[in-house]
């Protein structure tokens, strides 16, 4: 199914990294499955964008990054945040709109951020986080910190102007930036094959003179290998890389899509991709290589369930934010009248 300029094979031999990759993919999958239930039960307000089917990309990328490296995520961000080390309790509390959430209930699903972990936020506008990641990469370059930044975007984001502006800038300034295109094949209901000109998104890097590779985004080890090369280039001052990681989103664009009864995908197609499930595949690979036993796998699965039970219980038990919270955090420095309120004068 994969065509294009494939990257060299990579075998992950570090047992801890292998186990951790399985655990994190499983955690993302089960986090998202629980989120769907909680949205449908109206415990989580609004709608969320599930990462199910794409777990190998976030986990493959973040397995190679250091904690000090920076990522900018997308509207489909839960997977990136978990992969980068985010705390599922604080994530779940944020989805519940509670004060213990990452953003004190002011961001929700599309804006979870943890600057301490280098997570510069999920983002509600397609590709808008890309230049923000580039800015972090630029700062790292100016200060010689050795950090790299990763900009996640989708096949939809691949057609945004600001992405192309940033690819050009990253190339001329040789920024330590990695463009990760998560090609899940649909921008909402519009097929990538319909919306994307040329031989493929990965080939667009050539126009800007830096490496671009098509990667099997449902194989965590392939993603790791590709990112390892990209990180080496970035850290050694060689500039950016574009990795088009092809995967498939099992769910609709957002939680409520099912109710719309859309027909843009055939069940056969969904089943075909589900047949290559990244988590099942990785577990099978590890079993075969005798890196993970089935008992160990079951133990991880149970730990994940317990962790998520705890996260949901924590979110449910957490306090709602105090009304004053609504008026806080817009500015580092407030002034009288700022932020303006809708009715009563704020004389603070």
């Amino acid at each position: 199914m994969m065509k294009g300029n494939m990257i060299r094979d990579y075998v992950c031999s570090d047992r801890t990294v292998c186990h951790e990759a399985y655990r994190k993919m499983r955690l993302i999958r089960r986090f998202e499955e629980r989120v769907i239930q909680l949205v449908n039960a109206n415990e989580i307000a609004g709608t969320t964008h599930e990462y199910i089917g794409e777990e190998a990309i976030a986990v493959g990328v973040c397995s190679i990054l250091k904690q000090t490296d920076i990522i900018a995520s997308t509207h489909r961000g839960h997977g990136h945040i978990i992969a980068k080390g985010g705390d599922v309790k604080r994530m779940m509390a944020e989805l519940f709109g509670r004060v213990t959430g990452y953003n004190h209930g002011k961001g929700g699903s599309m804006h979870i951020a943890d600057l301490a972990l280098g997570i510069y936020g999920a983002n509600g506008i397609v590709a808008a986080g890309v230049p923000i990641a580039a800015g972090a990469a630029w700062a790292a370059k100016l200060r010689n910190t050795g950090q790299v930044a990763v900009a996640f975007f989708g096949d939809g984001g691949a057609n945004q102007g600001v992405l192309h502006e940033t690819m050009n800038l990253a190339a001329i300034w040789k920024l330590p930036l990695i463009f990760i295109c998560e090609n899940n094949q649909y921008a909402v209901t519009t097929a990538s094959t319909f919306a994307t000109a040329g031989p493929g998104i990965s080939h667009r890097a050539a126009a800007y003179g830096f490496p671009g590779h098509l990667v099997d985004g449902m194989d965590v080890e392939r993603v790791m290998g590709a990112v390892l090369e990209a990180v080496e280039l970035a850290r050694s001052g060689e500039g950016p890389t574009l990795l088009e990681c092809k995967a498939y989103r099992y769910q609709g664009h957002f939680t409520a899509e099912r109710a719309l009864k859309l027909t843009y995908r055939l069940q056969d197609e969904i089943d075909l991709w589900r047949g290559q499930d990244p988590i099942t595949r990785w577990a099978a690979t590890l079993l075969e290589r005798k890196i993970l036993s089935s008992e160990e796998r079951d133990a991880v699965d149970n730990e994940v369930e317990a962790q998520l039970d705890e996260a949901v219980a924590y979110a449910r038990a957490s306090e709602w934010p105090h009304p004053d919270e609504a008026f806080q955090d817009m500015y580092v420095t407030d002034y009288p009248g700022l932020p303006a309120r809708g009715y009563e004068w704020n004389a603070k």
Partner: protein
Amino acid sequence: MTYLQALREALMEEMRADPSVVVLGEDVRQSLRGITKGCLEEFGPERIWDTPISEAAFVGMGTGAAMAGLRPVIEFQIGTLLFVVMDQLANQVQKLRYMMGGQGAIPVTYIVPGSGARPGLAGQHSDHLYPLLMQCGLKVLMPATPRDAKAMFTAAIRENDPVVLFAPSAVMGTRGLVPEGDICAPLGVGEIRRPGTDVTVLVSAPLLAETLKLAARLESEGISVEVLDPRSLLPFDHELLEKSVTKTGRLIVFDDANRTCGFAAEVAAYAAEKLFGFLKSPVIRITRADLPVPFSIALDKYVLPSTEQLERAIGQVMQYRHPLLDVTLQGGR
């Protein structure tokens, strides 16, 4: 010292004092607009970066770099380029800290030199779009004098939030005294440029000089005009406005932005809500027409706010007769 030199002095002093201050923009190394002249020679290419024509990308980069600890100063070659980057300004830089629940800080300064209309630049180079940014909650400054240019640019760079500083074309060439040494004006503090007792004219920077001239002439005709320069549009000095209007009882807002939902509309609405009992006449707005600025110098004056309009409006508020009371409300309180 000219206004432009004052801006340059502020920038260079901040760059000397703080190595995290870096400049991004189009043609800033050659310094097409003059503010960054000498920066490349003194600070080297690592501190001042020419960008491609990619406004959305470099504004977004400024955001990310500020989150990572730099203090970028971003120059807009043309004020209307702000339209091009509205997602990165309105949806990203100003919202991120709030949406993140107060994590981090984003200290970016955007400087817009030569903002507003100049003769012959026509529809796409002439808007003064500060109201749009204020509605998004961005802090907006618009100094009118060389002293304020230095003090407020310094304040903007030191502020730990995004700040937009408009340096209007009408004042860029003006000269004035700038005190020696470190000067920094607090945000949210306006200034009475000329005290008066009959009518308050709140005037935005590009219209200040002609307003002062008119006020001097009207004084000799027996009308005492108080001229209020807000300097900082957001935060805004409501206290000074209240003080002035409770004294004069009349308010005209003479502003260089568009009319609908404009800065003048906000000031007028505030006066109507909070100062109703002190007003002897309706608040009048003089603004741009909601039109692109036409090219021809025979036409642009009908779209831009003018001193003739201001003089008429002053006459109007001084002669105002209340329809129910059928009297002209005279004198002080």
